């Protein structure tokens, strides 16, 4: 599958500030998944978005899937030091079940 573009590559924030990472694809996606990888750790599944315009929340995390199913975002409200890590989106294109990972956004939270 075509790799989805993810920005920014790095983001430094002060604890308590908000954070957003974006994924954009040139093609219409079937689904999009989000994973978090802590430093030295392995990717951990956060959520999967399937429907056009879908918005899902997990505590301080808000996930959105664009109306055209070509983009997605992850927003963290009031970051904490426990949010540190790399957040990957993974696209699933039509007819496939294999996710293709974006480059990831590394979040650094300064206390």
């Amino acid at each position: 599958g075509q790799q989805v573009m993810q920005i920014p590559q790095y983001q430094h924030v002060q604890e308590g500030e908000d954070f957003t990472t974006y994924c954009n694809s040139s093609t219409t996606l079937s689904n999009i998944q989000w994973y978090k990888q802590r430093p030295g750790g392995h990717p951990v599944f956060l959520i999967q978005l399937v429907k056009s315009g879908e918005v899902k929340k997990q505590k301080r995390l808000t996930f959105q899937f664009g109306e055209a199913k070509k983009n997605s975002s992850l927003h963290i409200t009031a970051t904490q030091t426990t949010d540190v890590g790399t957040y990957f989106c993974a696209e699933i294109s039509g007819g496939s079940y294999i996710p293709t990972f974006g480059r990831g956004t590394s979040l650094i939270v300064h206390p």
Partner: protein
Amino acid sequence: DAMVIQNPRYQVTQFGKPVTLSCSQTLNHNVMYWYQQKSSQAPKLLFHYYDKDFNNEADTPDNFQSRRPNTSFCFLDIRSPGLGDAAMYLCATSRQIGQGTSYEQYFGPGTRLTVT
């Protein structure tokens, strides 16, 4: 707890010396994946097994082979490791029904391979 286990966690091998990494799972998932992840990069899919069916990515070097003797175990063989093969190798599983949709992947802790 059901999980994905990888052994060893750290592996040092010499240039050109074959090495085998192992993965086991207690989730009873039918799909198992091997990824290569280099520093500050996304996981790159090498191949996966859907049940017993082996699926190789087009750009996976022939130097990389895999075996899945049963549902629970999967092995990654690197026949002649080069310096460029030093990376974290991640095993993942998913429970897949059909091929028209996708399900979450469960990753093991990874094996960090060093080639000297």
